[in-house]
């Protein structure tokens, strides 16, 4: 399946998440779109069972078997690829029931390795939508040589792009859900003898909601095509998609709730399933400030005339 096709599925999962429908309970996006394809690319043979991922920073990673007499320009080398890892993997999606594929900077460069949560100290937690976000504490965690895979910086970069884009696609789905629920509500809720949707003030806000949701969808779709075509080179497109998805959340959730009235603020409405996810997901896999800063830096490191080339992706 192509990346755009996979992303369309991710988006559907984001739209139905939490509703108990089949699409909403499909295998984790973290597994199918991010961890598994990258593990396969790195030729990591992993045991059966669901996968999740963590792009880790701040871990202390050392060679398990340092080669004392082989000190190269990058420092000590290992006799083999085996690693010892100390540190924390914060707020990993669904880590309590999955193997975590970790991407990090190892002693010899970028490295991928799996972490079995059973061999760590698991601090269970949740995001605002109640989705499991578990923090794993690794204390001298041993990664055997056959599971520690050195990878190229490009692969690491693609890892991050896939993570961000799948999150953005989930957000596009949740935004679409906000539109569906809001339109259904304003079409049926009668006040002053007519449906809410007949009030001009309501129409104005509803249109803005529809637009903002369409904007996120278009950015995600285009970035998916770019990722399919360019791989790790699609960094501008993916950054723009996640930056915009995260930046649009405040407006989307605000309008959806405002037009739902009090019921949207309660468990009586399904709206919370979408909006609490949007409020969580905008922070996950890089928030809008993180990705916008990258776009801004990219713009400022080129000649000003190149700004347009950057936006169009054609030089």
């Amino acid at each position, binding site marked *: 399946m192509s990346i755009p096709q996979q992303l369309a599925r991710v988006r559907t999962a984001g739209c139905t998440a939490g509703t108990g429908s089949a699409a909403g309970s499909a295998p984790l996006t973290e597994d199918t779109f991010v961890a598994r394809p990258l593990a396969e690319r790195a030729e990591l043979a992993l045991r059966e069972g669901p996968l999740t991922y963590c792009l880790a920073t701040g871990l202390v990673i050392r060679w398990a078997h340092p080669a004392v007499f082989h000190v190269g320009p990058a420092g000590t080398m290992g006799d083999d690829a085996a690693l010892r890892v100390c540190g924390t993997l914060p707020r990993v999606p669904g880590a309590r029931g999955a193997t975590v594929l970790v991407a990090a900077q190892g002693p010899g460069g970028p490295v991928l390795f799996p972490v079995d949560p059973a061999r760590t100290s698991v601090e269970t937690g949740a995001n605002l939508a109640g989705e499991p976000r578990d923090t794993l504490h690794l204390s001298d965690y041993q990664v055997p040589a056959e599971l520690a895979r050195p990878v190229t910086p490009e692969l690491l970069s693609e890892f991050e792009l896939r993570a961000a884009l799948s999150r953005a696609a989930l957000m596009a789905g949740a935004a679409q859900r906000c*539109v*569906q629920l809001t*339109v*259904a509500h*304003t*079409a049926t809720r009668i006040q002053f003898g007519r449906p809410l*949707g007949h009030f*001009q003030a309501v*129409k*104005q806000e*509803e*249109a*803005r909601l*529809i*637009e*903002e949701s*369409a*904007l*996120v969808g*278009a*950015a995600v*779709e*285009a970035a998916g*095509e770019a990722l399919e*075509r360019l791989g790790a080179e699609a960094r*501008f*497109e993916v*950054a*723009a*998609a996640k*930056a*915009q998805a995260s*930046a649009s959340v405040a407006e989307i959730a605000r309008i959806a709730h405002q037009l739902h009235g009090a019921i949207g603020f309660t468990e009586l409405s399904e709206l919370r399933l979408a909006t609490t996810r949007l409020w969580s997901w905008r922070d996950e896999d890089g928030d*809008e*400030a993180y*990705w*916008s*800063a*990258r*776009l*801004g*830096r*990219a*713009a*400022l490191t080129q*000649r*000003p*005339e190149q*700004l*347009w080339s*950057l*936006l*169009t992706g*054609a030089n």
Partner: protein
Amino acid sequence: MTALQSVQTLELRREVRRFLSEERARGTVLGRPDSWLTGWHPEFSRRLAERGWVGMALPKEYGGGGLGFLARVVVIEELLAAGAPVSAHWVADRQAAPSILNHGSEEQKKRFLPAIAEGRCFFSIGMSEEQAGSDLASVQTRAERVAGGWRLTGTKKWTGGAHCNDYAIVLARTSEHEDRHQGLSQFIVDLRAPGVRVEPIRLLTGEHTFNYFHLDGVEVPDGMLLGKEGDGWAQVTGELAFERSGPERYLSTFPLLVAVVRELSDKAATADQQVRLGALMARLYAVRQLSLGVAAALDEGRPADVQAALVKDLGTRLEGELVHEVRRILPVAADAGATPGTYPELLALALLHTPAYTLRGGTNEILRGIITRAVEHKEQQS
């Protein structure tokens, strides 16, 4: 947008960029905001036409390029991003040409389309009136039958370029009906015909682009009725997707963003400046993708008026927000009297034009009604 990545399209884009850098060197392309409204430069329009970049979507038999809307979009987005002076041929290329192609007689097509594609024939649009702004169906300009043609009487308002263009497409009432949307017709009016009087309406900057366009019994021959008598409303609304969704609905202030990047690139930008700049880039990227989606739909003959309304509201709001955000990124007192092309001068120009972005091409508040109605309809059916 895979069509946009085709070899031909990428080559076309490079060609336009080479042309633009030559034109920059000769001083015609100056990175001015809102250049499609105020940059009137007939020689530049003709140089574009020589390269086949006017009337690109017209069939070859009428002097066009026989290319799709996407190819046209590539060229015009390059021109607008560069702030090139394209207003002379703008309406002819965007609106009059497709309108004549779709509704015109064979004689009209042969007469006007090749001339438009050569950059020799410029058009205005005579739709709005004093009492017919957003509510276009209430136009009061009348066309009465006379021997061999029609006599037009009334006053059009906000007619851009009527003082320098060659023709205008005028919407007028040809008969009375209970349903106001019936009995309207479109005419091609020679702007130099007897009875045409053009009176300037100056913008708040003092610039002259808009006019009152008085028709004091202007005689229009039968051959200049555009389309069918009484079909004016359908013809006009069918054109709106062209008018509403193009790059001019989100790129009008892009040259100001280039200007602020130029200012910042000499200094060490702060983290906050980088983030704010990046956020604008993200939104521009996203709106552009939506707009390209409309061009692709038009290429495939799919209806796109709702999508177009959506792009117009998002894009034109962004044009204005960009101005205020750029000012926040690098505060400076806007100064219309500063040296042309400097950051304070460009900021002043873009700022003074902000009221127009969300008004022209259909007031955004009205467009939002179209969007809501269509989506409600779709959701109820699903």
